[in-house]
């Protein structure tokens, strides 16, 4: 369906505005990460020397700092790094000497599989269960599942992961507990992440269902005796699309966070573990490059969500002011 001319114009202007804001946010974010790393205790040169078993003697530390440009002023360091970023380079890792970008790409495969699998599974599990609970609010089944979600919310991912490893790797040894070389290596980590994330999703979807099913147009549709195959997708789900989309968007960073813990426990040589180890080592180029990548991903995802909002909700189009500010 073609968009009306006025609507397209509003959308175009608002998108340009958002893109501009995105660039500004991006610059501010990079500056924030850059500053934070410089303020954090721990010197990368000393850390590298200690990591390799050498003594961080002052002269060697000074030589390394000079080699990495850490002897320059903060502004000089930031501008040099930003200049590289604009040229599509993220610099070289202090510890390995390899280009950060290629190291990141190498590790992104397993992480994206991990996040995508648990993300899709979470949606697949939690949306139907959440809706079902919402529609059966107050029943015994709803109360039981709701109590289970409260329990689930209080279980830390780390603990759940260890529990799954113990149950399915040690007591009933059907799955491998560490590594990422085959598909079956993904089952336990994906399950752990999915379970932890699903609990939150289920509760939210349940509450949306309860809230939206009380709206008059939903009740009217129900009263008209519409078949479930029309009622659920065309009325209930459609009206809940925006809050669910918001839920998905806002939960994405938590999937990244969960992947850091998951990759560490299950010994996944993925991007999140790479980023965490870089933080411990104070490997500035890797930290900055990784943070920039994650931020870019989330920003682009949010931007696309805005587009979907625009297309999905006519009120967004009608509320010109909201989009033109």
């Amino acid at each position, binding site marked *: 369906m073609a968009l009306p001319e006025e609507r397209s114009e509003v959308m175009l202007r608002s998108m340009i505005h958002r893109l501009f804001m995105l660039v500004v946010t991006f610059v501010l974010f990079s500056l924030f990460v850059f500053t934070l790393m410089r303020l954090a205790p721990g010197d990368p040169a000393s850390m590298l020397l200690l990591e390799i078993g050498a003594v961080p003697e002052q002269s*060697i530390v000074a030589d390394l700092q000079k080699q990495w440009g850490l002897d320059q002023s903060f502004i000089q360091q930031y501008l040099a790094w930003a200049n590289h970023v604009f040229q599509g380079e993220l610099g070289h890792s202090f510890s390995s000497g390899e280009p950060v970008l290629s190291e990141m790409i190498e590790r992104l495969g397993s992480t994206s599989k991990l996040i995508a699998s648990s993300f899709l599974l979470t949606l697949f599990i939690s949306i139907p269960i959440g809706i079902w609970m919402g529609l059966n609010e107050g029943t015994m089944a709803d109360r039981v599942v709701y109590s289970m979600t409260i329990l689930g919310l209080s279980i830390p991912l780390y603990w759940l992961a260890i529990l799954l490893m113990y149950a399915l790797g040690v007591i009933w040894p059907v799955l491998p507990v560490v590594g990422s070389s085959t598909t079956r290596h993904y089952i336990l980590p994906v399950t752990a992440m999915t379970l932890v994330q699903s609990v939150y999703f289920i509760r939210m979807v349940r509450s949306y269902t309860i809230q939206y099913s009380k709206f008059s147009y939903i009740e009217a549709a129900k009263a008209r005796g519409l078949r479930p195959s029309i009622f659920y997708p065309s009325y209930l789900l459609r009206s809940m699309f925006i809050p669910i989309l918001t839920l998905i968007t806002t939960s994405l960073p938590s999937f990244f966070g969960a992947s850091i813990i998951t990759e560490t426990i299950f*010994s996944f*040589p993925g991007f999140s573990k790479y980023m965490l180890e870089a933080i411990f080592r104070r490997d500035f180029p890797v930290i900055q490059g990784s943070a920039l990548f994650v931020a870019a991903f989330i920003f682009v995802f949010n931007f696309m969500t805005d587009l979907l909002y625009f297309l999905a909700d006519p009120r967004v189009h009608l509320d010109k002011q909201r989009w033109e500010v």
Partner: protein
Amino acid sequence: MFGRSGFGVIAVVLLLFIMGCSQHVSSPSAAEEDKNIVVAVTQDTEADKLDASTYNGSRHTHAAIYDALVDYKGKGEFAPSLAESWEISDDGRTYILHLQNQVMFSDGSPLNSAAVKFSLERAVSREENASLEISRLLQKVEAPDDQTVVLSFKDTATQVLYELSQARPYRIMSPNSVTPKGDVNGTFQKAIGTGAWKIAEYQPGIQTVLIPNDHYWLEQPSDYSLVFKVITDPQARVMALQSGEVDLAGGELGNIPMESLPVFQNNDNYVIETGSSTMSYFMVINQHNTSLADKNIRQAINYGNDTSKYAGGSGDPVRGLFQEKVAFISDSNQPSYPYNPEKAKQLIEASGYQWNKNKQLYEKDGQALQLRLVIQSEEYPEWKEMAEIFQDNMKQIGIQIHIVNQERAAYYDTLWSTKEYDLLMYRTYTDAQLPYRFLSSLFYDSPSSPGVAYQDKPLSDLLDQIAATVSTQQQQELFNQVFLRMHEEAMSVPIYYAKQTFVHSSQVVDFRFNAIEDNPLKWHYLKKEAK
């Protein structure tokens, strides 16, 4: 919305999926699996960058691939390795090494003086090795014939054998490891050594497969492959041992938490092996703290420290900073402070502190005797419990301890740069780095480089004299004075003598410890019995 049948279908699919997976678990052929000994390690081997002259990768992989010219036997003694004998000039400036005959690198090329010259010159050319004595003092390496190497130093060099025996950076690598071949500044291509193993497969961050070096010269090569599997989380290592995914874990390679050891005790499927170590845990003292500048207080802390309580009382009695296995240490030359809380209190009172009955601690001018103890528990999880025991020990003698557990990078920054601690838990180095290398790194004080762990001119003068002394007997006399000085001044607080603990499946047999912790096990002896 979902009927019972819907859930039933999902349940069946999941069950089938898991059952399918269980078939996959046992899929590698039994014969293939039995030929692999899988070891859990925390650090990636970085096998693609395992240049013998660098610190890349893990120490144990260096030691598995590359041999040293001399082997450290412990207690300051050395055994022949690639060098079958050596002579040292009286002034300690010339070392003549005679190489073994018929030794070959894993690629079949011969070990000769040219390869040794190449390896040493390559290591010396690297900036990160600049602080080592060989790199600082080496003038030239000569190869008068195929089996002889002559090292000439600018000044008296007393640490040469110690440094040559270390896992890196002076082990011997084939000139074919770099391109152009034999170029000291050439680009590293492949790890080629004379050690018992060679690299067959490397998956970064996942695992490294080492296979026996058919040309191994010292003993019979192994019949097995050695797989170093990276597992960073300690609990995951325990699970991997229990699930049978790894056969062996422990030591510095990938420690098993003390609290998890009961899982493997009294279990026929596992064997716990405990070996000695040369490492000690101790407290670094910040002498710039007003209280700790007072020798009485430093001595009081030592007297009040009941070392028998650490590690559930399993540790050896602590007698001084260094274990008895360390070179130049004897049972009589390292005095220690016996546990004596009454004596500790007397010393504190002698320094003008008064007992505050209400607060149950000592005070001076209204100020409580309290100290900030910095630790880290990422690398040494047991330090947390030890710090708490120490805190309790100090409470008994009226000193209040505030424990600050820092993240690893912040902790090292505190030790090496900011010095924002009163006491800091640390550990000694190991093997051939003890005692001289360790003392000169942490206790040597000069105007350009203040001592890291303590600043004491008489001690630094003694270390200078040791560096210029070739005679072992004279060195011993000087070390006796060093240990006495450190004791009298109470420059540190010894806590615990570390041990090496490994756990392996009972299928793995012929487990033997090596003489040095850098290469903790005789890997090529390990075998696997059928279940």
